[in-house]
């Protein structure tokens, strides 16, 4: 793996040295950017705990879901971005028609919401990274410490501004900035994960964790809840419906293979998730006093596992202090590389409308500062934003499927996926996936989570609740109304239509981000 990574870096550096060109310097640089955008904290803290709870049946279901739903949708989104060469509102306008512009605008709003609270989560990670260096969390009550960091802490707020500033600065540098940043982020992420996994696997009793992670029960495989968990993991981790693939594909080479690139993107996301599983699960089972305690730890939620349980483990683990540093570095690199993409998704539509790149980034920075500060100050507010975004992302998958169906799935597959530059030939199965399987499964997942949320809070209808139906409908409706109200204004502001009529992909346009 290290050889592949070093080759990758060499290839990217060689391409950079050949001189500046619009878009990514090479196809590999593009794939690395896609993987960097997809791999986030969800791979490192969500996948391991869900995998440990559900075993091998979950992992198999996850691989199947990635293959039949997520990777096909990402292929379609890749075509949308590369063909229209616009951020999501312009992409939906040129691909699915003027009346669909607002769907792309909703995606931008969802990503702005994501970036606002995600930056707050990253500020916690930076905080814990600092504490790892000084062994600051050793010997203290982990729950009290986490509560003090995530609620009303001025230092967290300061770190939140720092994380937002770094993300904005990298996004401001455009595609070349993202490439350069990922040359640092991605190797560090994978090396840190690999070292943590090797250490974790060598702990006495590590095989107990592997057994829980991979043990296959046929009854679990037939359990619909395992499949829904697998789909949820795949959607929330890989990033279809976020506008990520559409936005990054805007800058891709028109003469490269869409299907192979998207497949590598999906596989890269799975690679990071499974590697994180090897890093986290064996350690939990090896160091927990009982198997029951280890399972309870895996059921303790994302924040609970990372900031309470893992920190407790690092304290008793051999060389735990160093592994703690590596773990939080990998979490930070994964999160930061995704956050930069969130910035790009939010800013590109303004550049498409003829706005200055600098002003667009600055505007988004200020917006996210105001929107995200409550999350950095109050963990309950953050939890609310996380819930709303999770549900909206599932809807985002349906938007992408709708756009592809409206444009014509046969047309997309035969003209754009299977063109002269394709190494992987895509069959009719892709059309079936986009037309029927992906929207149906996304719909089932949306309904399942919605039904589940009725049991979480007594006042499920309350629009100001934390994780309930009312708050999702309230905030989702505001997003939809705002986006719909501005549909024509946004559509009119995006003047250029780059889509050629001859079935080819247009060249990367000259805009603030493309060089």
């Amino acid at each position, binding site marked *: *793996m290290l050889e*592949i990574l070093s*080759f*990758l870096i060499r*290839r990217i550096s060689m391409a950079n040295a050949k001189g500046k060109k619009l878009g990514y310097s*090479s*196809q*590999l640089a593009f*794939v690395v950017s896609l993987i960097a955008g997809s791999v986030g904290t969800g791979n490192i803290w969500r996948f391991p705990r869900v995998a440990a709870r559900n075993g*091998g049946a979950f*992992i*198999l279901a996850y*691989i199947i879901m990635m293959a039949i739903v997520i990777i096909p949708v990402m292929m379609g989104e890749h075509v949308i971005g590369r063909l229209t060469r616009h951020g999501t509102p312009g992409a939906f306008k040129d691909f699915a028609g003027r009346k669909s512009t607002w769907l792309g605008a909703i995606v931008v709003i969802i990503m702005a919401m994501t970036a606002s609270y995600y930056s707050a989560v990253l500020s916690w990670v930076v905080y814990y990274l600092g504490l790892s260096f000084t062994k600051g969390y050793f010997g203290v009550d982990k729950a009290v410490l986490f509560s003090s960091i995530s609620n009303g802490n001025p230092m967290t707020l300061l770190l939140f501004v720092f994380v937002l500033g770094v993300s904005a600065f990298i996004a401001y540098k455009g595609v070349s900035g993202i490439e350069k940043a990922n040359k640092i982020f991605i190797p560090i992420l994978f090396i840190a994960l690999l070292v943590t996994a090797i250490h974790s696997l060598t702990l006495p009793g590590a*095989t107990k964790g*592997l*057994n829980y*992670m*991979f*043990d*296959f029960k046929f009854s679990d495989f037939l359990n619909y809840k395992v499949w829904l968990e697998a789909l949820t993991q795949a959607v929330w981790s890989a990033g279809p419906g976020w506008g990520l693939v559409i936005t990054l594909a805007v800058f891709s*080479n028109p*003469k*490269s*293979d869409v299907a*192979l*690139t998207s*497949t*590598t993107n999906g*596989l*890269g996301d*799975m*690679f990071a998730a*499974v590697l994180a599983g090897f890093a986290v699960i064996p350690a939990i089972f090896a160091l927990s006093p009982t198997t029951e305690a280890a399972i309870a730890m895996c059921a303790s939620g994302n924040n609970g596992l990372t900031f309470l349980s893992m920190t407790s483990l690092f304290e008793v683990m051999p060389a735990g202090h160093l592994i703690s540093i590596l773990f939080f570095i990998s979490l930070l690199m994964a999160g930061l590389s995704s956050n930069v993409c969130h910035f790009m998704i939010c800013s590109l539509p303004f550049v498409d409308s003829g706005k200055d790149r600098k002003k667009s980034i600055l505007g988004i920075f200020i917006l996210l500062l105001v929107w995200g500060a409550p999350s950095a100050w109050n963990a309950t507010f953050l939890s609310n934003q996380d819930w709303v975004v999770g549900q909206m992302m599932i809807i985002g998958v349906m938007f992408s499927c709708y756009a592809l169906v409206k444009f014509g799935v046969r047309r997309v597959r035969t003209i754009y996926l299977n063109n002269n530059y394709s*190494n992987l030939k895509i069959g009719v199965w892709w059309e079936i996936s986009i037309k029927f399987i992906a929207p149906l499964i996304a719909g089932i997942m949306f309904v399942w989570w919605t039904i589940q949320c009725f049991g979480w809070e007594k006042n499920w209808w309350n629009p100001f609740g934390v994780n309930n139906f009312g708050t999702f409908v309230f905030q989702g409706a505001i997003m939809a109304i705002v986006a719909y109200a501005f549909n024509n204004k946004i559509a009119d502001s995006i003047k250029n239509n780059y889509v050629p009529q001859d079935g080819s992909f247009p060249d990367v346009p000259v805009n603030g981000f493309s060089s």
Partner: protein
Amino acid sequence: MTPIAIFMMIFTSISVFGTFAWSIYRLIHMSKKQVSEEQ
């Protein structure tokens, strides 16, 4: 570890790590071809 867990671990490693390595190899091959065609 149970035999089925060992099998699943090998299956997952091959299907995820193996196919990822294969797709990266294909991309590198494709990039090389593209560069030589452009030259």
